[in-house]
């Protein structure tokens, strides 16, 4: 399975975040991560998407790439298509810090790709997967 890539494209809407969570959990399980690690990965994917959605602008679609490299799972989440203005509350934007704490704690490394203060993509990885 090494170097295998799974690609998922979903509309950038809250109702589809569950699909990305389930896909990430299934892929991480297949790679041999344990139950706690799978929970971490599932949660991190959702939080990364929340960070991209809860901004002044949000993309039309999200492209999510799950990759198995060595013993690691790599996940890239990229906003694509037209970016449209949102009516997100300042309170929701304030809560972005919660997502950042969760991501920083649950993944080994997280990289934010920003443009004019807007997060356009988030790349992250976590190690210690099995060799299946």
């Amino acid at each position, binding site marked *: 399975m090494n170097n295998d890539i799974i690609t998922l494209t979903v509309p950038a809407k*809250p*109702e589809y*975040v*569950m699909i990305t*969570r389930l896909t990430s959990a299934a892929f991480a399980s297949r790679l041999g991560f344990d139950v*706690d690690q799978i*929970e971490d990965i599932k*949660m991190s994917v*959702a*939080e990364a*998407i*929340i960070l991209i*959605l*809860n901004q002044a602008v949000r993309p039309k679609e999200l492209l999510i790439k799950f990759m198995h490299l060595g013993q690691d799972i790599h996940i890239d989440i990229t906003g694509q298509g037209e970016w449209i203005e949102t009516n997100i509350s300042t*309170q*929701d934007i304030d*809560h*972005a810090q*919660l*997502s950042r*704490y*969760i991501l920083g*704690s*649950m993944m080994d490394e997280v990289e934010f790709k920003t443009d004019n203060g807007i997060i356009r993509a988030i790349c992250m990885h976590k190690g210690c997967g099995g060799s299946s």
Partner: protein
Amino acid sequence: MDIKEKFNDDTKTWHVSLDGEIDIYNAPELKEKLHKLIEQNPGNIVLDCQNLTYIDSTGLGVLISALRRIKEYDGEITITNLKPYIRKIFVITGLDKIFALEVQGT
């Protein structure tokens, strides 16, 4: 997500049980419900999370917002029966310091 609530008139406390997953999709529904309960009967809230299987940062944001609102009436929110992996999220975000938490099996 399923929400059940009952008000105890003696203790002036809402007992709210949360069932299922709270995420970015259904968190607004929880927010509306909790704020409505506080408006209806300002007091304390005990959240029973025995059957809560997942909560994300938007769900946590809703709980923070409800806590702010209930503090205006000198109320408190106690969160009970948290599964250990959900308690971990409260610890990571520092919210274990602002909510009274009780973990399952303790």
